[in-house]
């Protein structure tokens, strides 16, 4: 099974309409927003404020993207019902749960976001080979290119950060939070 099939089992991209493609794109941003929100909450709980603050920033960014796509959808299709469901997608742009650690640095948080943007880029590249509707193709090409822009933004932020100056993980007794 390919990554694309793993991330969107049951979606046939060959027959995807523009409305469904826009709704899918909204859900991808929504899933990423919610995941960053979860990860930020986890890191706040585990007193990792730098990484938590960065993930909170990603929540705002993903929400902005979602709203932009929603506006585009509303202009083109108004109140027409949504046919795709959130349950149809698995971690397209959302970071995997195992990307985070209770002692992760801000740099590691940015690297997590970078890997997620790369993952989303690979997804759009992969689905484009199946898409036949020219309008859907245009949309997905735009989204694919935006993922590259997002990667560049994260890379610029990473370049501004000083190198991690930290103890090796093995030197730190890392226990779970009080239950």
């Amino acid at each position, binding site marked *: 099974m390919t990554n694309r099939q793993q991330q969107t089992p049951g979606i046939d991209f060959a027959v995807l309409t523009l409305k469904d493609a826009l709704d899918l794109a909204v859900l991808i941003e929504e899933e990423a927003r919610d995941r960053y929100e979860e990860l930020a909450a986890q890191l706040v709980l585990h007193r990792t404020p730098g990484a938590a603050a960065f993930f909170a920033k990603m929540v705002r960014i993903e929400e902005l993207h979602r709203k932009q796509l929603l506006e585009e959808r509303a202009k083109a299709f108004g109140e027409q019902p949504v046919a795709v469901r959130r349950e149809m997608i698995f971690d397209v742009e959302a970071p995997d749960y*195992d990307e*985070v650690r209770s002692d992760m640095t801000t740099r590691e948080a940015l690297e997590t976001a970078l890997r997620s943007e790369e993952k989303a880029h690979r997804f759009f590249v992969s689905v484009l080979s199946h898409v036949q509707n020219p309008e859907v193709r245009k949309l997905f090409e735009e989204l694919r290119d935006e993922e590259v822009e997002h990667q560049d933004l994260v890379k610029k932020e990473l370049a501004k950060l000083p190198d991690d100056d930290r103890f090796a993980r093995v030197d730190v007794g890392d226990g779970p939070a009080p239950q």
Partner: protein
Amino acid sequence: MNAPVFQAKDYKSELKPIWCPGCGDFGVLQGLYRALSSIGRPPHEVAFISGIGCSSRIPGYTTAYGFNTVHGRSLPIAQGVKLANPELLVVVAGGDGDGFSIGGGHVPHAVRRNMDLTYLVMDNQVYGLTKGQLSPTSPRGLETVTSPFGSLEEPINPLLYMLAYGAGFVAQATPADMPGMTALIEEAIRYPGFAFVNIQSPCVTFGEDDQQLKAHKAKQKSLASLGHDPSNQLAALDLARAYGTELYTGVFYRNPSPPPTYESLVKLRQTEQAKKARPRNQILDAYLQK
């Protein structure tokens, strides 16, 4: 009128999970929400029963009914819940320590009684909540706070146990494959009888590096890709022996002709007995005739 559609978020409670960041249980919880959404039963028709341990916190993170019971006692209590209200969809959740150590004695009886329960064990091969002691599924040689020079014991094989006890549905999953795990949880819940899913859910804090989800992604092999026929119990037993060396995911065994559940037999017995029962106003006659 269409039946209401429940989304995964409808099963998510306001309580934030306090597992360690990176824990496999986050993925399991997401998979559960999605499986329940596919099944479509409203949260008030679902009950989560658990014991004690990190994974046993799951009932609190759902909007369904929940009972975070005592250590090792999730299965007896779940059976009581199911018997009291057979219409409830009952999911039992817990860890390998809760299920196969202190609760180990309850497992064969729950299996042979065959109630329509789904038992999800989040197998992390260590006692994580109490800071990393040997658990029943810890591999031989594992160094922990209770085995500083490495474990001398062979681990329990939960898959072989369940198959040997006669469980009608035995599967294994990992949150490294979210769609696969979600589909397996759904299939287990839909199975009409006792269903067991061993979910390899690594402990990010006390687990071994080669047991984390990234390693799972590389080494998992689906049973379907091996051409395994899940109705073949002997083949399932053979494949289950690889627990601890291979990470097989999918359905090991699914009884093609599920026997009647305990609760359906109880209902039948009650119906039969009710026919023979004396009317209420004649009950005392049984004693008075002496």
